[in-house]
């Protein structure tokens, strides 16, 4: 088990957002679905130490990381591709990628290898290593964000809405790459574009109102009438 979350509760102020979430990720690719406000981003923030758990446990690679600072979580081997990308706009692509690896012990000494992998995954980045990230399109920035996360040679890669703001063609491309990646690294991905992401995952959870409403294999989810009506309605 790489990530094991049990009975996790947290919230903001007096508002409880997660009401006891159980979720685990092994060496696999896991999807996390649900409407806006269901608590997906809160769950990710809690894993990453940006949000303190009120109760419950978050275990990563056998260690309790609940409540640890974000940078320590990141150094322990979880890489996040946040919804808002959170890149360094005034720095070059190369620097953004470099920073992905610079502070993570797991990536020490193998930066070159990781960089090769990233540019192989997103060839367009190779041409643009010197370009400032702030001047790139949303889709390209999304690639940089994924690339930056991969540079850390993570044990677990978390992607929060990787297709947000992307044109459909690029969405397809991103998920193709993710499908390739799942052999290398455990993945947890939240996505509104359920149909596309089902191709890239092994298993999925549906989160509703702060609790897991459904857990099934990708194939099972695709057939589930609730999922079809809510997310695959068209």
């Amino acid at each position, binding site marked *: 088990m790489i990530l094991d979350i049990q009975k996790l509760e947290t919230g903001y102020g007096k508002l409880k957002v997660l009401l006891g979430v159980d979720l685990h990720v092994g060496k696999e690719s896991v999807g996390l679905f649900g409407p806006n406000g269901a608590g997906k981003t809160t769950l990710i923030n809690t894993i*990453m130490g*940006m949000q303190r758990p009120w109760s419950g446990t978050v275990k990563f690679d056998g260690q309790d990381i609940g409540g640890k*600072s*974000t*940078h*320590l979580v*990141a*150094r322990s081997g979880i*890489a*996040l591709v*946040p919804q808002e*990308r*959170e*890149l*360094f*706009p*005034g*720095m070059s692509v190369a*620097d953004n990628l*470099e*920073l*992905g690896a*610079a*502070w*993570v012990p797991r990536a020490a000494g193998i930066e070159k290898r990781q960089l090769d992998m990233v540019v192989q995954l997103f060839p367009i980045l190779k041409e643009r290593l010197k370009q400032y990230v702030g001047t790139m399109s949303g889709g390209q920035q999304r690639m940089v964000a994924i690339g*930056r996360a991969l540079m*850390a040679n993570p044990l677990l890669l978390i992607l929060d809405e990787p297709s947000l703001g992307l044109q459909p063609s690029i969405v397809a491309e991103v998920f193709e790459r993710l499908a390739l990646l799942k052999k290398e690294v455990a993945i947890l991905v939240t996505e509104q574009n359920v149909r596309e992401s089902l191709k890239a995952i092994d298993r999925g959870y549906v989160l509703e109102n702060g609790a897991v409403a459904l857990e099934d294999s990708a194939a099972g989810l695709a057939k589930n009438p609730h999922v079809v009506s809510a997310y695959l309605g068209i």
Partner: protein
Amino acid sequence: MALKRRATILAALSAAATILILLWKPSVINNGLQQAGLYAAIAIPMGLVLGIVHIVNLAHGEFMMVAAYATYFACRATGMDPLLAVLPAAAVTAAFGWVVFQLTIKRALKAPELNQLILTFGIAIALTQAVNILFTSQTFKLQLDYVSASIDIGEDTFPVWSYVFVAFAILYAVGLKLFLTRTTIGKAALAVGQNPKGAAIVGIDVNRVYGLVFALALALVGAMGALFLTKQSIFPSVGSPYTMKSFCLVAVAGIGNIPGILGASLLLGISEQVLRGFRDTRAWADIVFFVLIIAVILGRSIKWRKS
């Protein structure tokens, strides 16, 4: 890109103006340059703190004052030249700044910026007044022969010592540029300045970087304190005008634009000297600074609204 074009036009215009003035009154350029160096070297560390830690440090000049006092007493006790004290002063001020940061500013990092402003204002008062109690309001000055160094060209004599400030300003700007773009820790600092959340995500200890950057800025301020002492008298309130000047220069340059501070200082230093060069405009030299600030900021805001 637009920035670069603007910078080029500005550079060309100022080059032309410079040549004109050089022909007419060369000392204006000579003095303006040196004054600009002083302004820039003091303002750059403030720009660093504002750009990365996002704190307007109203105790900026006061830290320089403290460094200058420390250097003064060290030099008087040991007979050392303040130039030799530049590095120790930097180290001591950095350590002092780090402690002040940990005790106070760190706790206010997430507070509204106004609270930070008043906090550093309180620090400024406390530092000034503590020095006043210890050493009174009297001025101290080291007297050093090399400060009066000059070069004769034809009939004219040009003082040159203050080019040491120009050298430091350039050293600071270039050094910081290299540090922030070439070293891992520097890149981390830049990353924290641009996006603290993104920095934490890649494993950077944001609070530590804030502390380090603050200490680094204070090291630069401390070195300037020692250097300032070579030329100027010191007294408890000597730092506060430089806080305000630095703040304004940083704003004119644009937050996070450290090389821009060089340009802004140059513009200010030379235009001040030009006004002081004429009998009728002498008294108005002070105003040019503030008029420039307003012009630049309003000009920039109009541009923003357009895009």
